[in-house]
């Protein structure tokens, strides 16, 4: 049985939860809290923003009838999807689908919200997203194959191809970060970065900037997020997922939600790893501690993370709406031939740079 202290050590101090509670209970409470307080509102806002920004780029208005300025559009979509009467699926499909959703939402545990609210902060947390996206691709592949249609199988193979080619450059870029920060836990990575942009991992040295680009691109490709979500389809507006996932109704609602969550999760991880994470100016922290309003510091820290995530999400949505889709074999081509070698060069460059820094 795992030591109770591994989970949510900082929650003990912050919320006063006794670590005498069994770990599954702590885990369940924590994940639910994080999901309700962070993930759900964030996904809602991003879904709304995606429709409006996409529409604005296309000289349109986007949804504006559902609530004030269309803000309740994602809620309407999800309620409608959960209401549909769908046909049953086979046991095989159900198993892989549950695996997919469970794997994806397990990443709630590593969202870098603040130092006190991060749920899982072990020495290898940073590898977790990469592991997750490879697993997700595996479950998606099995899901596609279990449909036993031609297009399902082809799409399944495509998803796995994209994930396996993207995994290598992303792992190498994480190694670059690990070199600079001396470890792979959130605390180490974020403390080595400062508050100002030139102290962030992305901008402190050019090789790490390359690693940042590779990390973001690789993640989008592996998670099949637009602009890399497959090339078959009339428009971006439909959730085809490369014809693999024959979702409809409730399951489509979950997929609709989880696809945006994957984007948010990846951008939040990138914000934590490369863009300074939850660092706020130290004068704010001392001022707030002096005033005694302790949770306000956490609020500012979370806001910092959310702002950076949001900027990154905006850039991704912008690029996805404006560009056309590439065929999967072209994508895997340039990931292998371009991102792979470049990530290795970035690793060597970071090692040389950082050793120079240390020697100085």
């Amino acid at each position, binding site marked *: 049985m795992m030591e109770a202290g591994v989970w949510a050590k900082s929650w003990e101090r912050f919320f006063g939860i006794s670590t005498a509670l069994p770990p599954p209970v702590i885990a369940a409470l924590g994940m639910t809290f994080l999901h309700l307080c962070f993930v759900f509102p964030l996904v809602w806002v991003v879904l709304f923003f995606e*429709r409006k920004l996409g*529409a604005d780029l*296309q*000289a*349109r*208005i*986007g*949804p*504006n*009838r*559902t609530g004030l300025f*269309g803000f*309740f*559009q994602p*809620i*309407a*979509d999800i*309620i*409608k999807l959960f*209401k*549909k*009467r*769908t*046909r049953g699926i086979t046991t095989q499909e159900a198993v892989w689908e549950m695996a997919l959703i469970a794997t994806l939402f397990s990443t709630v545990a590593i969202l870098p919200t603040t130092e006190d609210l991060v749920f899982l902060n072990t020495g290898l947390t940073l590898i977790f997203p990469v592991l997750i996206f490879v697993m997700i691709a595996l479950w998606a592949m099995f899901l596609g194959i279990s449909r036993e249609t031609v297009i399902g199988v082809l799409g399944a193979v495509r998803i796995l191809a994209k994930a396996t080619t993207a995994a290598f450059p992303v792992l190498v870029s994480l190694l670059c970060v690990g070199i600079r920060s001396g470890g792979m836990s959130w605390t180490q990575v974020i403390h080595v970065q400062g508050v100002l942009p030139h102290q962030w991992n992305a901008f402190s040295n050019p090789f790490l900037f390359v690693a940042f680009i590779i990390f973001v691109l690789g993640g989008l490709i592996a998670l099949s997020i637009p602009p890399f979500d497959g090339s078959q*389809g*009339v*428009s971006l*507006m*439909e*959730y*085809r997922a490369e*014809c693999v996932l*024959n*979702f*409809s*109704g409730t399951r*489509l609602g979950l997929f609709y939600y989880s696809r945006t969550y994957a984007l948010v999760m990846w951008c939040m991880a990138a914000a934590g790893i490369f863009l300074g994470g939850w660092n706020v100016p130290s004068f704010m922290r001392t001022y707030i501690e002096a005033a005694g309003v302790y949770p306000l510091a956490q609020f500012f820290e979370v806001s910092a993370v959310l702002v950076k995530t949001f900027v990154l999400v905006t850039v991704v949505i912008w690029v996805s709406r404006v560009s056309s889709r590439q065929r999967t074999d072209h994508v895997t081509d340039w990931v292998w031939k371009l991102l792979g070698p470049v990530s290795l060069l970035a690793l060597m460059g970071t090692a040389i740079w950082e050793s120079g820094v240390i020697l100085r």
Partner: protein
Amino acid sequence: MKQQQGFFANTIEKISSWATAQSLWYYVAQSGCCADEALEALSCRYDLERFGCLQQTDPAKADLLIVNGAITKKAASEIRAIYEAMPEPRYVMAVGACASCGGPFACDEGDFSVSGVDQILPVDVYVPGCPPRPEAILNGLIKLQEKVSGKARSR
């Protein structure tokens, strides 16, 4: 007179029908001239997405089947198959004179077209015109939204 349900059930019903009306994802069965006008209706000037509608390429993900143009007897079973693939609740919008009642190709003149797609599918909204203007198609969508959310003034 609507049967009085409990307050809770009533509210759930209202919310879910509001949600369905505000988020009608559609599948366009394009055949014929009205397909061009429907394409204009979802373009940036008239923008069908303001009402929350997204185009889907898979009938299993759609709630609304938009039939543009004449349906021939040869294609009738195919369009029925698409309708059957949509999960409930599902709606059908017949756009144009040919889909509503056969139009200039109606049965007693030519005998290859079906005189109105309502011979094959249960239609919820008819949008007349040859071809109807995009505003008329949007008007049809608004009427469908009113019907779905229970505020219909006409049956």
